[in-house]
């Protein structure tokens, strides 16, 4: 799906603004029973910064992994995640509880911004390059594991962007196939096709790099 189409879908879970401070909003909406994110969004809408911190703590790692894998740059991934959470803060009052899950919506926003970033890359600052690992500080087994992880990360980075996004959603964000399909705005069948191609490609690349 084109970025524009994804972007158009991205705000669907939001509705008209709710009045502030009257308590009417909570009584009018159907908060999913037990959905902690909906409850936190209601509290954020009332201006609770503690609720915003808690919601951020629940989702920031998955959002960061997703952006990091799709973009491939730490600094730009951090910018994307910061922008996404700022949207959460600014638009919490417009959130429609009981609709899309917060996590799925957040992944979609992060994906949109990450893909946008790929098409319009900013010049990376020189001081954000990751520090090289010091092999001498690691035991041999840890070194082998790190080499494996480097090979996998490299193989994932070489996937086409939609396959990379699907893999990042499943393994990085912990999405189910259905959730990943929703975040990408495609059917579950289409997502499974992306995963099939991605896994085949990864298997082949890892075999090549091992020989």
């Amino acid at each position: 799906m084109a970025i524009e189409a994804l972007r158009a879908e991205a705000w669907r879970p939001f509705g008209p603004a709710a009045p502030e401070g009257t308590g009417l909003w909570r009584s009018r909406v159907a908060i999913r029973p037990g959905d902690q994110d909906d409850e936190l969004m209601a509290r954020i809408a009332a201006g609770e910064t503690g609720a915003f911190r808690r919601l951020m703590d629940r989702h920031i790692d998955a959002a960061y992994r997703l952006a990091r894998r799709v973009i491939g740059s730490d600094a730009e991934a951090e910018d994307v995640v910061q922008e996404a959470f700022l949207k959460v803060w600014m638009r919490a009052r417009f959130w429609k509880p009981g609709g899309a899950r917060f996590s799925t919506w957040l992944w979609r926003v992060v994906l949109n911004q990450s893909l946008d970033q790929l098409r319009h890359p900013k010049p990376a600052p020189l001081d954000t390059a990751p520090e090289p690992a010091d092999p001498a500080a690691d035991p041999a087994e840890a070194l082998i594991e790190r080499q494996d992880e480097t090979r996998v990360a490299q193989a994932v980075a070489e996937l086409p962007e939609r396959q990379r996004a699907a893999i990042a959603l499943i393994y990085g964000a912990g999405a189910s196939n259905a959730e990943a399909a929703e975040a990408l705005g495609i059917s579950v069948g289409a997502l499974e096709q992306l995963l099939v191609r991605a896994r085949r490609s990864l298997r082949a690349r890892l075999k090549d790099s091992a020989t």
Partner: protein
Amino acid sequence: MMDLDEFQDFLDTHGPDPATWPAEDRRQAEALLGRSAAARAALAEAQRLDSLLARTLATERASEALRARILATAAGHARPAAAREPWRFRFAPPWWIGAASATASLLLGIYVGASGLPPFVPSEPPPAAGEIVDVADLAFGAAIDEETFP
């Protein structure tokens, strides 16, 4: 009956965790695993890839600096105002204003009636039908002439 190629497609679609396999295909997959060493090797390879992906992609964490920056940025951003009632309702007078006005009018009427003040009588009779009346006379009285208001 599922063959090895179909099993590999099945693994690529649903992953190597049998708990996530669809029930309708799982029986055939398990039957193939029972009779084919190549299928078992394919499953082991898929599990290794799965484990490597999880270990590589699921362990990164957002930095504390990023968390602090998000909180600071949010604190510095004023949020859009909430939806409000239209202004005419926000500035509507309280309910007792109407009752107070009616009471004041009643008291004034009683006072005027009791004090014997003469009723209002116009100083000039109204113009007859068809008579031309200067608009300025209506507004300011007949004494106003063009020198005062050229």
